[in-house]
């Protein structure tokens, strides 16, 4: 069974007099363990698609099944629980809590997941060790480099062992060398069986994925297979 299955997904924004169709009937299927890149120019609808897949927003029309659950009809709090358990986000701007330590940032999803303190701290420390930040758990984002911040964000995304890692331009705000490190980390996560969806506009970055989806005008323009999933 596919991890992600969308069927004729539409997203329409009502801008008063005109209706803007950000997505025009997207149907995709992503299996567990896939590593997919989504590419497209700005305004193509790739961000809207990511928001729908990430359960941050709901489609105007169409159906979306994640891990067998029909999430397209869920309301706010159910979606919040799905985001908490099934999805880990990595953003271009890191989106860490600026005043909290790395440890607390990583612990946060577990707090909302209702886990107890001991378990939380243990899991958060472990996640930070996985991204090689075991020495910097008590540092605040302002005391870390861009690459380190993004690794904290990845630790936060992965700490709850989600079914899906969603990364939106994860290397957009860091230099190429550090970007390569981050991509290396993604490859490792993929090798460990995690499903990753990566949004980018850089071909070099997209080539790290197994498959690239090209989006234009709210539709899938073409699909390119970089390598066969092993």
């Amino acid at each position, binding site marked *: 069974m596919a991890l992600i299955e969308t069927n004729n997904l539409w997203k329409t924004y009502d801008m008063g007099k005109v209706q803007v169709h950000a997505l025009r009937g997207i149907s995709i299927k992503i299996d567990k363990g896939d590593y997919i890149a989504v590419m497209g120019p700005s305004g193509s609808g790739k961000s809207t698609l990511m928001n729908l897949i990430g359960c*941050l*927003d709901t489609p105007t029309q169409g159906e979306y099944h994640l891990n067998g659950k029909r999430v397209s009809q869920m309301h706010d709090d159910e979606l919040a629980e799905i985001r*908490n358990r099934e999805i880990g986000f990595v953003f271009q701007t890191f989106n860490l809590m600026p005043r909290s330590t790395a440890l607390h940032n990583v612990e946060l999803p577990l707090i909302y997941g209702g886990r107890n303190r001991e378990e939380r701290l243990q899991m958060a420390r472990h996640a930070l060790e996985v991204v090689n930040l075991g020495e910097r758990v008590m540092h605040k984002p302002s005391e870390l480099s861009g690459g380190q911040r993004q690794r904290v964000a990845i630790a936060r995304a992965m700490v709850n062992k989600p079914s899906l890692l969603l990364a939106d331009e994860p290397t957009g705000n860091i230099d190429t060398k550090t970007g390569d490190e981050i991509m290396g980390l993604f490859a490792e996560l993929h090798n460990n069986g995690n499903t990753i969806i990566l949004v980018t506009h850089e071909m070099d970055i997209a080539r790290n994925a197994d498959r690239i989806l090209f989006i234009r005008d709210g539709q899938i323009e073409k699909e390119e297979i970089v390598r066969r999933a092993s």
Partner: protein
Amino acid sequence: MIYWDIFRMALNALWANRLRSGLTLLGVIIGVTSVITIISAIEGFMGSVQAEINKLGPTTFLVVRVGGIITSEDAFFEMIKRKPFEVEYAEAIEDACEDCEKIAMQAYGFSPEVKYRDKKLSNVYIRGAGASMIDIVDYEVEHGRFYSYEEDYGGRRVAFVGTTIQKQLFPNIDPIGKTIKINNLKYDIIGIAKEQGATFGHDADKIIFIPFNTFAKDFGTPRRNLTIFVKARSIDVLDKAMDQTRVVLRAYRHVPYDKEDDFSLLTADSIMEQFNNITRFMRFGLIGITSISLIVGGIIIMNIMMVSVTERTREIGIRKSIGARQKDILFQFLFESFILSVGGGLIGISLGVLLGDLLINLINMDMTPSLLAILLGIGISSGIGIFFGIYPAMKAARLQPVKALSYE
């Protein structure tokens, strides 16, 4: 427990904005302090009044020409037209009232000058009272004795004085047996009253009791301000004693059967009730006016929370993206306003109790911290936190994650 964690997040957020939180807290503190101060002071004041009135004793009542509950202006003018009291009423009550134990007639005045040799005191409260008065009022004999029925009957110039007279006129001598001059008439001191202490800035020991008949002879009978003090045999027969007294007075004053009494009977309870009535508007008015500052405190909280929600829109978006539900966000912001208001409330209560105490001490009254005021303070401040915090918190909770995340 997730709510404990959310509570800690709220505390951290407040701590991160220390100055702003402090100023908001100050707004609540000012509001709660003023309300608690006023309530404490009023409660203390009313308590002292009650204590003062209770000195009359539960079995004693007063018969007065003008007094009691005045319901209208007309009733008041009707009242001051009442006939003056006559001296023989006391005797009449004594004869006819079976359940009255002690009866004493009283007239009073303020003496412009009381002298002993070269020492002088002015404005001394002179009570011309029957010999039973010592058994009716709260004053007790410390040294010497109160005057007798014979001394009253004979109009003897004897005086029973309060401790202020003793302290001011006889600093180092025993005043008993000495002669003082009240308005240039000589009186022999025969006894000293136990100290009463001052209440409401009024010195209850700056007083001289002289026999009623002596007072009548020396100062004239001010018939318009005669008061009859009556002590019933027990609390059970108080009503009967009052009824019997009423019958006597109605007969003596020729009140037709279909007319109301043209005199008033006052007990400690009725005096207190009257005092309550008179001061009710003032008390509620004061509390009402000071409550405005509480509302201002609440508005400050709401304002700050609105700013805070807008400022932290992105933070809310991040929290939502990693799984915070609406109520998680709601409670975080509600906890923040709650901590501010209850924190301000607790500090305000402490300050208010202290200030109330200070105010009350200024007019020489005792005050115990009012439990009512404290509970009210906690209740009101937490209510304010929730009431003024709920709207900003709901606004935060309902933010759309996508919009919140892209907020600059």
